[in-house]
């Protein structure tokens, strides 16, 4: 029954034009980035490493496919929660707003199964978005530019990732980014269970992410104490996969915290939706 429901849920997601906004937006942005870097990448790179060049001699093909992919991921992954929330924030509240929740909830399906299936379908959609972004960025990056060692500049150090290590690191980074975005999926679904229109969960999800991200970037002692507890702090852990020495413990810790958030958000969603009187 779950498999049958899942097929129905996926069909619903992919038959809505709204679901393709994310894919189209990503394709356009990746294309624009690749084109801009192809035309003017050297100037951009010179600007980025001008301070370094006064102290180090940099040789080789720095402007390569892996660097382009990294820049694109770093820039676009910030926008991904919005694209994800556009669909997942609508999963429950959209059905309530359109009145179809009444029909759905009178079918011989438990409410727990409705949530499970919607979460799996939402996560699948999120995974496709991440793979679409990673695949397009990497595919076009390697096609247009050559492969090469990846130089990653951080605030306190430079990491050089050998070209033969880049592919698996990007693959794992996509996996971690998927877990990060699944936090957004479960969070927006939780809000969706409390609302009978789609705008509230989508906008609230974005507002919370923006507020948490701002708190995360401000170096204020008061905020420093709460930063480890904000899910947005851990959502950028994928970047740590591009350090010379992998901080495995930090990465695993962040993944576990994100999984705990997913479980917590989903539990609240189940509790709310199972108890809820469907009045819409």
């Amino acid at each position, binding site marked *: 029954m779950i498999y049958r429901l899942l097929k129905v849920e996926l069909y619903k997601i992919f*038959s809505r034009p709204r679901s393709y906004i994310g894919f189209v937006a990503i394709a356009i942005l990746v294309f624009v980035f690749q084109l801009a870097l192809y035309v003017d990448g050297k100037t951009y790179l010179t600007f980025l490493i001008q301070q370094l060049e006064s102290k180090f001699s940099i040789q080789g093909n720095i402007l390569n496919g892996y660097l382009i992919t990294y820049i694109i991921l770093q820039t676009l992954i910030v926008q991904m929660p919005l694209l994800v929330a556009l669909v997942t924030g609508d999963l429950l509240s959209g059905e309530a707003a359109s009145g*179809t929740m*009444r029909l759905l909830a*009178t079918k011989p399906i438990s409410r727990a199964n409705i949530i499970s299936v919607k979460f799996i379908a939402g996560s699948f959609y999120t995974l496709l978005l991440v793979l679409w972004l990673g695949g397009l960025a990497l595919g076009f990056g390697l096609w247009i530019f050559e492969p090469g060692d990846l130089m990653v500049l951080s605030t306190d150090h430079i990491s050089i990732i050998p070209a033969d290590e880049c592919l698996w690191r990007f693959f794992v980074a996509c996996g971690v980014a998927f877990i990060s975005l699944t936090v957004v999926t479960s969070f927006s679904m939780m809000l969706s269970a409390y609302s009978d229109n789609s705008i509230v969960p989508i906008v609230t999800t974005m507002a919370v992410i923006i507020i948490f991200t701002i708190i995360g970037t401000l170096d204020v002692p008061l905020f420093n104490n709460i930063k480890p507890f904000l899910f947005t702090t851990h959502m950028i852990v994928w970047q740590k996969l591009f350090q010379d020495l992998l901080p495995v413990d930090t990465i695993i810790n962040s993944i576990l915290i994100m999984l705990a958030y997913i479980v917590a958000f989903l539990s609240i969603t189940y509790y709310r939706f199972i108890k809820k*009187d469907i009045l819409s």
Partner: protein
Amino acid sequence: METIIELNKISKSFGAFKVVDELSLEVYKGDVFGFLGPNGAGKSTTMRMMLSLIKPTSGSIKIFGKEMNTHRNEIMRQIGCIIEKPDFYLYMSAEKNIELFSKLSGITVLKNKIQEIIELVGLKGREKDKVKTYSHGMKQRLGIAQTLIHDPALIILDEPTTGLDPQGIIDIREMILRLKNEMGKTIILSSHILSEIELVANRMVIINKGKQVAQGEVKELLSTQDLILSVEVEDGKIAIEKLNGYKKEKFSSLENNTLKFSLSKNEIPELVNELNKQGIKIYGITYRRALEEYFLKLTN
């Protein structure tokens, strides 16, 4: 008689507001059961409780002899329903909507069965169109199709004629009678229009402010044994004087020169004779059945 639905003192409160108050009723196999009440009487809330959309604050619901709390999915497999207005996935075709809802009901329906149902509800030729292009009447028909696709034993229709044109109302009424007579379905139908229930239902309940007002066979409840007769005369006060206590116990009120009496149908000629005998000019006589009169007062 096999009992299909048994509500036992169900109540529902939203905060301090009691919407349904210890309502009990029984629906038997093959019934077209009318659920009548003015707007806000608690009809939709009760129907939603029968469909497990709303949890009762107290009381129990048994359908097909099973407790809703413990056998929900088993029960829902045998129910088809429209609650309030029929809503669908507007971005999909009618055919696709039917297919999806049949899957959600746990069955795989063949294309020709879908076509059969589409034809039955009079949507043939429009089944490939997206539902967003449908009128309210067409959506209502599609709602009936969705209700029937998994061949349920019990059909619950919440005000299915709301917003339909006269022909649409007649079509739905005929469809309900066909479902009962040709397919043997048990149907619960809510409405705030008494005549609509009277035309299709064999049993009914009237509720007001969440409480049961009357329940039973439609024929008995709406019998002509208990009528409210309105007689419009030239001067009401003079007419009462002239009648001089005649049928005093049956007289109920005088409003704008209209005398109202509570009596049975066969007492009418006798009263009219007496009015004539006393030389009271009669401008008009109308009667309503007592329950009809009561219901009209409820619905203002």
